[in-house]
């Protein structure tokens, strides 16, 4: 496989030993990947990052885990580290479009727009399609204040029917302080899978950003119904009961 050509695997291992080893590694890494995915879908990025790392400990050829690590670093706001890590991963898998896209996302968050565009172009030029590449392309256009970002996000939604795609787009809109657009995308997420607690949480956050305290509380309560121990949703709901954040309360006092 050309994507693994940069890896230096032990050449002295016999074919039989390799065939015995491969299923065992896949089993372990698959389990870690599943746990990483679960954590990610619940909004626990720190946990997801650790599980992606565990998966890579078992099988370092898992490109999805490398991409996931970079994505989690970005979600955690560790953009310089994400950029460094994506560069390292690209040394191993130079032809992986999603890794190029992840690097582009890290770069655009670092406001290195020109390099980000080059990276996303590299991602799009790789064979195959993914919702993530279109999402990152949309983010770049959004960062550049170009109205065409919507088409890229729509394309991402068409490419993948997963509820996580619109939720990620909503999070991107929130990053760029556009809660109204974010809410539209978060609604798509809850419509795609009404059982996705995290989608309801993100929708609640968008509503709170828009000052829609009632609907926000309702969304957060739905999130807690689906995932009773969701810490972030509890905190948000508590803040809403107290009249919002400190800054919001100060503004409320001022506007009386």
């Amino acid at each position: 496989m050309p994507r693994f050509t940069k890896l230096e695997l032990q050449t002295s291992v016999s074919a039989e030993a390799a065939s015995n080893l491969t299923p065992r590694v896949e089993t372990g890494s698959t389990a870690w990947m599943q746990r990483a995915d679960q954590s990610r879908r619940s909004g626990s990025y720190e946990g997801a990052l650790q599980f992606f790392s565990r998966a890579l400990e078992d099988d370092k050829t898992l490109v999805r885990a490398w991409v996931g690590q970079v994505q989690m670093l970005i979600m955690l706001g560790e953009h310089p580290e994400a950029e460094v890590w994506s560069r390292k991963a690209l040394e191993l898998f130079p032809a992986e479009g999603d890794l190029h896209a992840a690097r582009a996302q890290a770069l655009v968050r670092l406001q290195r727009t020109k390099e980000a565009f080059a990276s996303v172009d590299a991602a799009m030029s790789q064979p195959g399609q993914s919702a993530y590449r279109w999402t990152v392309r949309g983010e770049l256009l959004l960062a550049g204040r170009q109205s065409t970002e919507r088409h890229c996000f729509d394309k991402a939604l068409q490419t993948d029917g997963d509820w996580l795609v619109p939720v990620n787009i909503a999070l991107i809109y929130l990053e760029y302080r556009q809660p109204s657009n974010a809410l539209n995308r978060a609604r798509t997420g809850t419509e795609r899978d009404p059982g996705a607690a995290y989608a309801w949480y993100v929708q609640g956050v968008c509503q709170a950003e828009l000052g829609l305290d009632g609907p926000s509380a309702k969304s957060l309560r739905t999130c807690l119904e689906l995932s009773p121990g969701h810490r972030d949703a509890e905190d948000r709901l508590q803040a809403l009961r107290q009249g919002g954040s400190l800054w919001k309360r100060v503004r409320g006092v001022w506007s009386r």
Partner: protein
Amino acid sequence: MVHAGSVAIDVHPPRASARAKRWRRHWQPLRAWKPALAQAAHRLERSFLGSWDPGDVSESAVIQRMVIPGWPQIYCGRVLRGRILLGVWSMLLGGGLLYAGTSLGSLLLGMAVSVHVASALELALDEGASAMERLVRAALTLVLIVCLVYLPAVWLIGRVATPRQLLADSGPLNIGDVVLVNRSMYAVAEPEIGDLVLYEIPEADLTGRTDAGYNARFLIRGPRMDRILAQAGQQITYDQGRLTVNGVASSLRPLNPGHLPASLSLTVPADSYLILPSSDHNLTEQVIREVCIVPRSRIEGQVYWQTQPLSAFGVIR
């Protein structure tokens, strides 16, 4: 850490320290406002200056017009912006030239250069460029404009009009006054009697007495400004403020006649001029005799115009 073959591949990504995260959190709000501010500036620009379509313009033509700020903008169709840049630059340059030789003049000239660089940078900078690339381009543009426009201009203007601020009272001129010196004047013509000149006084290290009778050591050097009273071969007598050249009374006086000795009599040697250093106070006749004969090579230029204070703006006679 996992070992694959002979190479160890670390699968644990680098993490931001708690301090780095705190630092980024503090700066995050500023970064978040950046797009909003840029958008507001863009809207403001569109509403005041209108939309801009550079159309089909030649890059070389734009670069050539960068010699004058605002000109490239006008050429590219941003007429109002170009006029504003040109107008501001003209005012700053005019003010800077008017106050040349003073701190205010330096400040205004510096701002004029900044406007010029800003005009060029607007077209030279690429919006998509990284911060470092922008910084390098800005520095290069500044260096190019200074080297290609301002240094030659300063050199050329400095040949005919070098501003000099007076550091001592000289008769009608006071401390802080600014005069213009034409340094190329005497490259094409000989100094004439009556010319007010900037010259390097002949160095002298003399011992003597002050007018009050105290022992003194006179170390005389540096630039001076005064009038040429006589030229080579002429015999002069200066007595009680009256100057006679070859026995004929002369109407010429040094800048500050009050500070000269009562009497002086000498013949000006070849290739020299008589310039009495009237701005130096308390020089004895002996000292003046040592330094009043100025070789031709020490005369730097003609002082012909006063720019500061503005109330005295005009030709110096």
